[in-house]
């Protein structure tokens, strides 16, 4: 019983981190129509930055040469900022061109970053990776309930990102983003600087992914390049598309469904002798899900719901009454 309980907690923690990733992608694709196929890059940059900022300076045996031993909150903020900076660098050459260019550049950069993580031993520890990343407040929280504490931390972070996404949906900024997504020419004709809006959306979504990465680093306490393969990007996409892009609830629901499915199938009894094939079969299923959802239910489980003008006026009036 206790075993199942701690398993459930770990699945919920991982699902929560993926839900944050998925909310970030929802701002890119769902709200702004940006085709980001390199989401894992922001995740990785957030994770490695936070790890390097917080870890103790390396000893003789470690391959990496930096470690700043700073407090965990500074590490997380650093991870978020680093992911945002990378988004700016990626956005400059692509966000003024047609949508597909960003898709190509983002998938490319994510792959190259992974080469970099594997090869630049002085910075990332290479394939050996970085170990012994600090868990926040681990000295104060008793070990027995630490996983519970971390789950609460992840869910609180998810709550913040979710609240931001919901606010964005109904803010003027969110409306401009959706207008650019749906009809760029109309937005340009109304005098909107579409590049600037797109860039802001791209940076915000990337920062969420960086945040998720930092949470991941301090959860697993070890980082290796193999953990940042393109599959993470694809799983996040599947989560978003299945859940319903353009809808923060959908993004969270999708991440919950996909991660539960992935983690639970990991421990299926090996009835058919498929043990070694399971990861491959799981990915085949992921791919088929993408194809199937786009074809049969492109709006996902929870479709995007835009408030109508009448509803908007009503909202304004009730706000007015309250104030």
């Amino acid at each position, binding site marked *: 019983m206790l075993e199942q309980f701690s398993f459930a907690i770990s699945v919920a923690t991982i699902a929560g981190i993926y839900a944050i990733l998925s909310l970030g992608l929802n701002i890119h694709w769902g709200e702004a129509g940006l*085709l980001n*196929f390199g989401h894992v890059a922001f995740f990785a940059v957030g994770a490695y930055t936070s790890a390097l900022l917080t870890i103790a300076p390396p000893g003789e045996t470690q391959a990496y040469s930096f470690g700043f031993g700073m407090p965990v909150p500074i590490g997380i903020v650093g991870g978020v900022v680093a992911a945002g900076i990378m988004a700016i660098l990626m956005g*400059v*050459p*692509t966000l003024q*061109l047609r*949508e*597909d*260019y960003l*898709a*190509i*550049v983002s*998938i*490319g*950069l994510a*792959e*190259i970053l992974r*080469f*970099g993580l*594997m*090869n630049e031993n002085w910075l990332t520890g290479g394939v050996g990776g970085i170990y012994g990343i600090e868990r926040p407040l681990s000295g104060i929280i008793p070990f027995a309930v630490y996983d519970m504490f971390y789950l609460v931390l992840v869910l609180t972070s998810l709550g913040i990102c979710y609240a931001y996404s919901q606010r964005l949906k109904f803010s003027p900024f969110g409306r401009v983003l959706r207008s650019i997504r749906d009809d760029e020419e109309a937005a340009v004709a109304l005098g909107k600087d579409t590049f600037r809006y797109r860039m802001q959306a791209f940076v915000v979504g990337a920062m969420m992914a960086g945040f998720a990465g930092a949470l991941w680093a301090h959860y697993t306490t070890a980082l290796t390049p193999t953990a940042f393969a393109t599959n993470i990007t*694809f799983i996040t*996409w599947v989560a978003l*598309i299945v859940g319903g892009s353009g809808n923060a609830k959908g993004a969270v629901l999708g991440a919950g469904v996909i991660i539960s499915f992935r983690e639970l199938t990991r421990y299926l009894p090996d009835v058919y002798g498929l043990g070694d*094939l399971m990861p*491959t*079969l799981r*990915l*085949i299923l*992921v*791919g*088929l*899900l*993408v*194809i199937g959802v*786009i*074809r049969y239910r*492109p709006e996902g489980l929870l479709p995007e719901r835009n408030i109508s003008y009448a509803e908007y006026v009503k909202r304004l009036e009730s706000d007015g009454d309250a104030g």
Partner: protein
Amino acid sequence: MIGVDPQFIVNGAIIGSTIALAAIGLTLLFGVLDFINFAHGEYLTVGAYSAFVVNATLGLPVWAAAVLAVPITAVFALAIDRAVFYPLRRQGAGGLALLITSVGLSIVLRNVIEAIWSSDTRSYAFESGATLNILGIKITMVQILIIVVSVVLMIAIHLLLTQTVLGISMRATASNRSLAMSSGVDAERVVKWTWVIGAGLTAIAGVLIGLNTVLRPSMGFSLLLVMFAAVILGGIGDPYGAMLGGLAIGFTQEISVVFVSASYKPAVAFIIMVLLLLWRPEGLRGGTA
């Protein structure tokens, strides 16, 4: 370029010509279907592995395997189009829906290949022939063959595009689909032939790469970025641009080994691509695409 080992030029020509073949397929499909096929790398893998089945499992010589890989991959591409992309086109789905679908397709195909043949590397059963030494440059008979086959195919594509009704219809559809259709071009027929030609060329590229190195389930996916770079360098949708782009990327990657670690070869292609996007997003040849 004094100081650069001439061996790089030969290696660049070998890599560049195979990339160019695969990139022509990618860019033709983009022109006609108006979406970037992220599963294109997997067509290359399918071509290479179908030749492997013919060669290693059925025991036919490698040249016969290479020839048979073309119709196998072309039929495969047509079947995939019918099952996956055609229904979306009929629904009137945009290029982005097709693009996301192709990403899903890429994951499926790559993992199906891995499930069947495992992630181990495979090789064709053949003699790579003598290694010649021309003015200090080493080149095997197979590598000469790779360059010759690629050049012949590129000339054939040029003749197809300029001299045949099909080729002219393809170019017309690529530059203005509705105008081409109102001039009596059967767009779905052009789409089918584009898949056949694009997948066929890509299959040959896969076999040639398999001859020069080894087969892996991820061989096509790992070349996807390089193919994109070649296509963007030449201007998306421009087959001649893709040829030039492929060769340029091949040479640059090989020469870059002098300056950076060989594991960053794909990064070199990527950096060229990003610089070009900043400087001339319409591609080196500029123009219509």
